């Protein structure tokens, strides 16, 4: 099995491309989390296919079932001579830092986190910009002037979603109220339904979630309500969650975060020996790293989309800045009123 292949690939020089090995370690969400792990893997898969790599040999993922698995998984891959190893998720920061030190000859990349090491590229996204845009959609679409936000576990990262969204809503609809709630759990669909039920029940008609599996519950609740004739919407996150909203069609739009683009691009750079070692690679609206889903035109009116486009240009041009933190949001609010 494996031993033969190893001998072979070590023995002969081979083409430049075929010798390159890239892998990723998922966080506890797993590779098919319908969220950023999956997205990252889709990027790698595309990269692998484009470069004729075989799965498990040339490109591969390892799944972590608990936090303690991150480091051994990273180390295993490093020892197995993968040239570039991704840690998906901010929780792996510390581990990447350590392992990068231990294996100075391998390259590493981390998503959603900045790690300062000479052989690590830090991939971040301006989630607040994409969230701003879906906030604009929400602010313009709401009929009740009341919208909701459901976060998973409160943290700096999720705050970026929250604040960008709130700013977008307020920018177009200063009278709106925004109901913000954290489930303190990324995996409780049950809590998701309960929170959404509370929000819709109290008058919100659009809920944006940045809550992983908990968000699934938000969808379920919205679908139930729509089925019963209520006019409610969900805004999806990370990937285009249009399908999650079917058959009742409750996905208004989604804030997409192109982790796949990131892993694809960074892998490509690495293979071309242009790996951005020690750098922060930030993906934003400008380079389509974040944005709103293409399917948005299904449910969002053309007027609103036109408005979104306006804001998009302003954000890219730097005419407005989407707030990422609570403090920045306070600042932003001063400009609105």
């Amino acid at each position: 099995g494996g031993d033969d292949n190893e001998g072979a690939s070590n023995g002969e020089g081979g083409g430049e491309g075929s010798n390159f090995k890239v892998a990723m370690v998922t966080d506890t969400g797993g590779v098919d989390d319908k969220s950023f792990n999956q997205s990252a893997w889709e990027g790698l898969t595309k990269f692998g296919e484009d470069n004729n790599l075989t799965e498990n040999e040339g490109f591969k993922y390892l799944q972590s079932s608990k936090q303690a698995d991150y480091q051994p998984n990273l180390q295993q891959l490093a020892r197995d001579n993968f040239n570039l190893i991704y840690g998906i998720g901010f929780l792996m920061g510390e581990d990447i830092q350590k392992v990068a030190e231990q294996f100075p000859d391998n390259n590493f990349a981390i998503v959603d986190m900045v790690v300062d090491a000479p052989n690590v590229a830090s991939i971040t996204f301006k989630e607040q910009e994409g969230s701003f845009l879906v906030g604009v959609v929400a602010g313009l679409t709401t009929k009740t002037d009341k919208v909701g936000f459901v976060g998973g576990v409160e943290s700096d990262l999720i705050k970026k979603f929250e604040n960008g969204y709130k700013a977008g809503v307020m920018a177009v609809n200063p009278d709106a109220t925004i109901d913000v709630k954290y489930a303190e759990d990324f995996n409780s669909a049950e809590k998701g339904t309960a929170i959404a039920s509370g929000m819709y029940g109290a008058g919100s008609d659009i809920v944006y979630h940045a809550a992983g599996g908990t968000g699934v519950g938000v969808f379920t609740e919205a679908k139930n309500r729509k089925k019963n004739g209520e006019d409610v919407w969900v805004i999806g996150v990370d990937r285009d969650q249009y399908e999650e909203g079917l058959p009742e069609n409750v996905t208004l739009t989604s804030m997409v975060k192109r982790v796949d683009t990131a892993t694809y691009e960074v892998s490509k750079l690495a293979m071309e020996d242009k790996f951005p070692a020690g750098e922060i690679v930030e993906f934003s609206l400008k380079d389509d790293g974040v944005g709103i889903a293409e399917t948005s035109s299904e449910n969002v009116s053309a007027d609103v989309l036109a408005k979104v486009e306006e804001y998009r240009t302003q954000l890219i041009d730097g005419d407005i800045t989407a707030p990422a933190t609570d403090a920045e949001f306070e600042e932003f609010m001063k400009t609105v009123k």
Partner: protein
Amino acid sequence: MNKLNFNRLLIPLLSILMGLLVGAIVMLIGGYDPIRGFSSLFEGMVGSPYAIGETLRAAAPLVFSGLAVAFAFRTGLFNIGVEGQVLIGWVAAVYVGINFDLPMFIHLPLAILAAMLAAAAWAFVPGFLKAKFHVHEVITSIMMNYIALYTTNAILRSVIGVTNERTESINESASLASPWLQELTQFSRLHWGVLIAVLAAIVYYYILQRTTLGYELRAVGFNKHASQYAGMSVNRNIILSFVISGMFAGLAGAMEGLGTFNGMTLSASFTGVGFDGIAVALLGANTAIGVVLAAILFAGLNIGGLAMQLGANIPSELVKVIIAAIVIFVASGYAFNYVIDKFKGNRKKGVEKK
């Protein structure tokens, strides 16, 4: 006596073999190659200094959580709340680790002590409620687990000041990490906690089997009515047992906070260390040496499972199936005894015929 000891060893060994057999069957059904699977599993468990280091590293918290569960069991109580106590111990250790600047010989023991005391205080609650209000310890412990989960996050945010998902790293003077051990084991995360684990197992044995307190605790565990007649305070013992059990649990938390992770992350779910402790305790028959061996086996299989993913592309969930099968077989020791006796009986008869 001899026969007893023999079976006591034989049954776990047979169980492990049968558990692996079950694993092999499941691998075959799933379309995987068992030989490749097992070779990478064992490789990942003990195949290199790194593997051994990681196995031992992962065993340390399990030894403590196993001892915690076992201690309560030995005194007639079911501490299903170890999970929450681990979290509380962890956060306490990290708090001391970050917020003090002391020489190591004070700082490290202080951080460990903080973990023990905080977890003990947490465990006091179900003990106290059982003693004073007859509230079933199992429910209280389950509830306390959830409370611990949310409280820990709140403490991390508001007391330790975490804004970015994870605490800063603890000061080196409170760290169990050992560059020497790490280097020795090809950068595993092996740390000095393993020594403390061994020490704790000895202390566990000592408390239960050698001290007056242990005599009393075990007596109450076996028969609280007779113990009460004999002048022991059943209520005091219930509380004490929970508190000591909690101290062991707190140490498991200290292992994670001061050894493996050097800090703590906001957690949305349980660590599993406490629940695994139940299985470890039971597999180890609630004895010190048994718990240590069971913890090493569990840890090894878990760590090996990661390698199995890499080497044979077999999902690491399979390890859970293997562990579960082993525990079920061990628990079914009576059936084994029966079969062994039958086997021996038949053989004896066969010999007699000749």
